[in-house]
């Protein structure tokens, strides 16, 4: 099936009444969840997984695409309206988004964020449409050593690129891999680290970890800020942009979308880095850089286009190699597997309908986000008026329902609580949680690839260097691990936020 007939078929499902209804539901739910401070796409997708249980995969995908884009946009909205970026991807948006809102132009900032996300997403999906099939063709020739090397590269990349200490990120990733070894070993049937508990035989469900480490742990910081007054932005101002502003924003959105896509394709990089990079480059390119930080419209358009382009770019390795490059795509992989879809190089040849269905859903999700959210923004932003105390209880209940509806076991609920506490402690001692989640999801696949490789080579590690592709990837993985450690020995690099103020 070629690109166009594949897409046509995908669109046929997406544009049916049922399809559109579910994208709509997804976009609204995603926006609402994303707007809650601290909750982002990871939580939004995780909470929606039980809902898609038993649904037609094509329709469920549409729902998820809506949720995914909605949540990213919701994060931008809370950055602009509250100066409270829920997730790190949305931090750069606060620099100019919040000043704009304070000047009474919240509506304009929200509109720019929506248009920027749309442009970034769309440009990125067009690249994805053509790049993913090409990469799939290359990836078909990959054997276990190449896969292992690739996944290791993804892990060390996310560890070295995440904020804070690389050692801490690597420890976090190692613990994720360790948690993945719990349960019956797939190759020998030996139960590992189950302590005789039958609930642990199948291993720990990734939803428990995703919701615990991210959503439940965030509840603790919501508790800390529970007395903060809810938003007082009753009037968000006009959503319209002038012709001059549109002209000013077009090149920004264009170049930042391409840049964002490229960053997103790389394993480990993704939304956070691309949004900061976009903000900084745009400031450097600007004729009046002093406007940045005081409500420059390009300061909102740049990170939003780049961030959304990167989120879609991250789908390239996910769809063509079956390997997620970030926490969010890792949860998306989990969601796809629950639906019975195994992304990877064979997806395109074996199930072209699903492959193109995913891509068509992304196009539609992105378009609907724009046309639905623009008029709905004033209403959706009322979620920010919900008192924090009530919100906290609701988030806890949604996490519990999310896990229970998949496993029907109270044991998993206690585990959820334990991971919530672990996530909270990790925040206190500044260990990033995303490497743990990604490592946990990759863990099973990595171990399998590693042992298959060694079985092929009869136990000799040389198999990882005799394959040139694997050797190169392992070398890069090693460098990704080594360079930040060398750097940390030199005087400390400034954090992106400080960097930006001084730049």
């Amino acid at each position, binding site marked *: 099936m070629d690109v166009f007939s594949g897409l046509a078929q995908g669109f046929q499902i997406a544009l049916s009444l049922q399809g559109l209804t579910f994208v709509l539901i997804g976009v609204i739910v995603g926006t609402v969840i994303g707007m809650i401070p601290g909750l982002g796409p990871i939580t939004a997708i995780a909470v929606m997984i*039980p*809902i898609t*249980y*038993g649904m037609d995969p094509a329709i469920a995908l549409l729902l998820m695409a809506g949720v995914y884009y909605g949540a990213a946009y919701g994060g931008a909205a809370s950055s602009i309206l509250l100066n409270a970026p829920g997730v790190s991807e949305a931090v750069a948006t606060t620099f100019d988004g919040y000043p704009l809102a304070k000047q009474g132009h919240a509506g304009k900032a929200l509109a720019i964020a929506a248009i920027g996300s749309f442009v970034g997403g769309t440009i990125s999906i067009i690249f994805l449409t053509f790049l993913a099939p090409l990469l799939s063709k290359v990836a078909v020739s990959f054997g276990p050593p190449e896969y292992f090397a690739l996944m290791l590269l993804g892990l060390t990349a996310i560890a070295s690129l995440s904020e*804070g*200490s690389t*050692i*801490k990120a*690597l*420890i976090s990733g*190692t*613990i994720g*891999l*360790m948690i993945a*070894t719990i349960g019956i*070993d797939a*190759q*020998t*049937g*030996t139960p*590992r*680290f189950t302590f005789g508990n039958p609930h642990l035989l199948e291993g720990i469900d990734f939803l428990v970890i995703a919701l615990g480490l991210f959503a439940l742990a965030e*509840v*603790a910081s919501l*508790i*800390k800020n*529970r*007395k903060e007054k809810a938003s007082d932005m009753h009037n968000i101002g006009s959503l319209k942009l002038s012709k001059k502003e549109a002209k000013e924003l077009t090149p920004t959105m264009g170049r930042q979308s391409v840049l964002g896509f490229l960053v997103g394709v790389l394993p480990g990089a993704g939304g956070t880095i691309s949004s900061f990079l976009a903000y900084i480059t745009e400031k450097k390119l600007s004729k009046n850089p002093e406007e940045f930080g005081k409500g420059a419209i390009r300061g909102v358009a740049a990170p939003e286009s780049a961030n959304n382009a990167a989120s879609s770019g991250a789908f390239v390795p996910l769809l063509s190699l079956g390997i997620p490059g970030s926490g969010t795509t890792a949860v998306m992989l989990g969601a796809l597997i629950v639906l019975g879809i195994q992304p990877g190089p064979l997806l395109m040849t074996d199930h072209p309908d699903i492959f193109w269905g995913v891509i068509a859903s992304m196009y539609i999700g992105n378009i609907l986000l724009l046309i639905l959210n623009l008029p709905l923004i004033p209403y959706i932003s009322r979620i920010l008026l919900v*008192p*924090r*105390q*009530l919100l*906290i*209880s*609701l988030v*806890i*209940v949604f996490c*519990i*329902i999310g896990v*229970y*509806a998949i496993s029907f076991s*109270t044991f998993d*609920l*206690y585990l959820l*609580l334990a991971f919530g*506490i672990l996530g*909270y402690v990790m925040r*206190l*001692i*500044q260990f990033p949680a995303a490497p743990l989640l990604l490592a946990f999801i990759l863990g099973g696949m990595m*171990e399998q690839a*590693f*042992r298959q490789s*060694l*079985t092929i080579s*009869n*136990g000799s590690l040389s198999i990882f260097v005799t394959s040139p592709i694997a050797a190169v990837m392992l070398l890069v993985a090693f460098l990704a691990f080594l360079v930040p450690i060398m750097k*940390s020995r030199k005087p400390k690099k400034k954090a992106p936020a400080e960097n930006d103020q001084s730049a």
Partner: protein
Amino acid sequence: MFQTMNKKVSIILILIAIFYLVLSFRLPAYAYVPIDSDIVPIGLGVILLLLSGMLYFIKDQEQQENKEHILKSELPVILGVICFIILYIALLEVIGFIIMTVLFLFLCSWFLGYKKHTVNAIVSIILPTLIFLLFDKFLQIQLPMGILPL
């Protein structure tokens, strides 16, 4: 020896790594494969041991005091919420989803300092009922009924 946060965390992690390694070495052997199920866990245990050792020698980032201060003032509230969650989980299958969720939402919000009791009660009753109907009728997922004779 334990003066900084990194050193404390590093010691705890080293203990975890040793515990994990001991368990890994005690995994039963399986004779018919060249690569047995203990290889990867042993490797991971060693890696964690090395990384935690490196962490011991890394200087802490600042702001630690500030964080600990917040921790102390908020800890009772967080522990309180954890107790609520444990009770909720423990009684979920016994008492049932609807009753427990109504109680949890109302009491937890109250505990956190939400003063508008009427609004709280309305939300606490309507939401669980709606969620239950959504799962039961629309998604065909059975949430625990408990003592409610529905």
